[in-house]
């Protein structure tokens, strides 16, 4: 019951946050002076093509760009009727991309799933790598294993994601025959789901996952090492050792579980980083996620497309953080009780 209350509480805070974030996103999207269409009008006027102006003016009215900003926001979200009644993000209408001359939903539909998939794979990678290595580092602290792993960890943090992407991209292709670029072989694009397609996607995921996850895994590894070291020096571990508890059991029975707690809490900090990384690496490696679309949309002031992608990316992070918080509450009852004020 307590848990259920916590989950609903957490869900509502997430929705509220999402609303604030949508305002922020909308504000940022409107920071540059003018918009895509008014730029186009100016361009048409400058080149003397006055016939095109009428059409663009029509589009401006159609997408309520002639309305005051607060009204534009409400229409975009779907709280206010536009020229064709309520049709905003809540109603499932993501807007129109002026650059591609297509509905936003059509441009991003596949990309959304691939983005989620890529991020899930990265989170998994971070855990699979960071947990065993972090424990190993703590247990073998101040040995060459510890030092080597620490150094690799530092390197992982220090190398910019996109450079690692370029290098691995090149060597992975040359020596390991890993596929380069994209998230699937070209012949599967736009094809229905099949085993061959899934396999192709999985093979293509190897390099991006590795690249995006390295920095996160390094940070996590070091944090787990520090947590573990704190625990391993506590008297109860000494007692257990004195009583003759075997080394594996000694580590995993209590210290590991205690050390894992703050680690799980950190997913909230990790996710924004991973998703940021995914955007950047997607641009460099040409993955069919929303990263490249965001970049072109931002450059050409294609505001509905860019706004939707930003909102989606932020929403993905918020949902991920919420899930991690709920998981943490299941792991550690103290959080549930201490959650709402003092």
């Amino acid at each position, binding site marked *: 019951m307590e848990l259920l209350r916590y989950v609903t509480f957490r869900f509502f805070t997430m929705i509220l946050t999402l609303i604030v*974030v949508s305002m922020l996103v909308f504000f940022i999207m409107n920071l*540059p002076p003018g918009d895509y269409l008014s730029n186009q009008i100016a361009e048409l006027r400058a080149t003397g093509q006055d016939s095109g102006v009428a059409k663009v003016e029509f589009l401006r009215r159609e997408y309520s760009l002639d309305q005051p900003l607060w009204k534009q926001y409400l229409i975009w979200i779907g709280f206010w009727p536009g020229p064709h009644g309520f049709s905003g993000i809540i109603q499932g209408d993501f807007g129109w991309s002026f650059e591609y001359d297509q509905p936003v939903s059509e441009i991003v539909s596949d990309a959304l799933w691939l983005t989620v998939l890529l991020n899930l794979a990265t989170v998994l990678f971070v855990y699979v790598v960071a947990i065993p290595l972090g424990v190993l580092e703590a247990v073998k602290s101040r040995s060459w294993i510890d030092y080597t792993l620490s150094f690799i960890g530092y390197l992982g943090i220090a190398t910019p994601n996109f450079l690692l992407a*370029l290098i691995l991209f090149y060597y992975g292709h040359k020596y390991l025959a890993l596929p380069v670029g994209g998230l699937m072989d070209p012949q599967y694009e736009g094809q229905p789901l099949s085993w061959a397609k899934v396999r192709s996607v999985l093979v293509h995921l190897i390099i991006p996952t590795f690249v995006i996850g390295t920095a996160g895994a390094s940070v996590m590894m070091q944090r787990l090492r520090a947590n573990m070291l704190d625990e391993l020096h506590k008297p109860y571990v000494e007692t257990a050792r004195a009583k003759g508890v075997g080394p594996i059991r000694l580590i995993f029975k209590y210290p590991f579980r205690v050390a894992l707690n703050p680690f799980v809490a950190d997913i909230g900090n990790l996710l924004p980083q991973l998703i940021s990384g995914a955007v950047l690496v997607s641009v*460099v490696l040409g993955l069919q996620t929303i990263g490249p679309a965001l970049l072109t949309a931002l*450059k050409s002031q294609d505001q509905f497309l860019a706004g939707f992608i930003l909102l989606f990316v932020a929403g993905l992070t918020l949902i991920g953080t919420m899930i991690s918080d709920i998981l943490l509450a299941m792991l550690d009852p103290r959080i549930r009780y201490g959650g709402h004020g003092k």
Partner: protein
Amino acid sequence: MTHRPNHYVDPAPYDPAEDIRTPGHPDLDVPNRVLIWHRFKRYKPGVISGIFLALSYLMLPFAGFIAPYTPNERHAAHLYATPQMVHLFHEGQFIGPYVYPITAEADLVNFRWTYIQDRKTAARLEWFCEGHTYNLMGFIPSDAHLFCAPEGATVFLWGADRLGRDIFSRILYGAQLSLTVGLIGITVSFLLGISIGGIAGYFGGRVDWGVQRVIEILRSLPELPLWLALSAAVPGHWGPGAVFFIISIILGLLDWPGLARAVRSKFLALREEEFVRAAEMMGARPRRVISRHLLPNFSSHLIASAILSIPAMILGETALSFLGLGLRTPAVSWGVMLNDAQNLASIEIYPWTALPMLPVVLVVLAFNFLGDGLRESLDPYSDD
């Protein structure tokens, strides 16, 4: 785990002439910063990184003097020139540092430039020679260079890029922007973080609640897409200086929540202490209590965390410029240079165009080691 008492009793009789700062003194009574310094000195990677960073920053005003060329100087005959080795012995004889002149040859089979060394002539480097004009320390016009190639030869220590610009010189010039971006960014983030965190922690209540929500929201957002969106909003007609400044502010603008959170939690704890109440009783205003009584208590922790957040900004600038949304040519930064190395062809055929990643990695590593070393030595009374 042996337990050590928190104070040390010297068995020797009291000697008033003795300096309490004598090194190697096991005393725990010396000033805090001496203890911190002693602990920090033992952490070798931190010390080496500190020296490296100090040298790098000291070099910045003199980058133009050390670099043999100016950043946007083009050598049309040396596009994608290979890195040139500096030799000392020519035909078994010591003649001082020299390079072999290189000439370009178009490889029409593979469509690329190849370079042929002329191993007969040794072009000895000239010292303190005249070259193109630059501004020393940003405002003193000068044309003196530490070294340059003699007439008819070139000295591309780390090769040249697709326009025939010297990569070594450009890396030195790029450091001027890439290294200062982090400093400006951290100043912005520091000012915001300390004042907002301080206000929240000191006043508590509703202010604290509001600030905490803002922090939570900002921390839960992915940084890079927001950086991208903000820098896409920078007007295209702004000059390089203005763009540089606004980009560093953008980088700092999203970084403060972490710092504010740390400041706030410290304040909440310290606010209850007697010395704060004493100051308030004596009529000190909040501003004075915050800046004179509360902040100095953990300023060293703040410095360590600031040092640890500089790398993120350096990487941020690199990423933004790399994607073409940060600094733009003719400004030279490491990210702008890497923008050129974006495609696989350049890495495969001309690997030296990716060289700017080396300083990026080194500087980021150094900041991490330095920050870690400082943080660990901040608690002088801890074991080990």
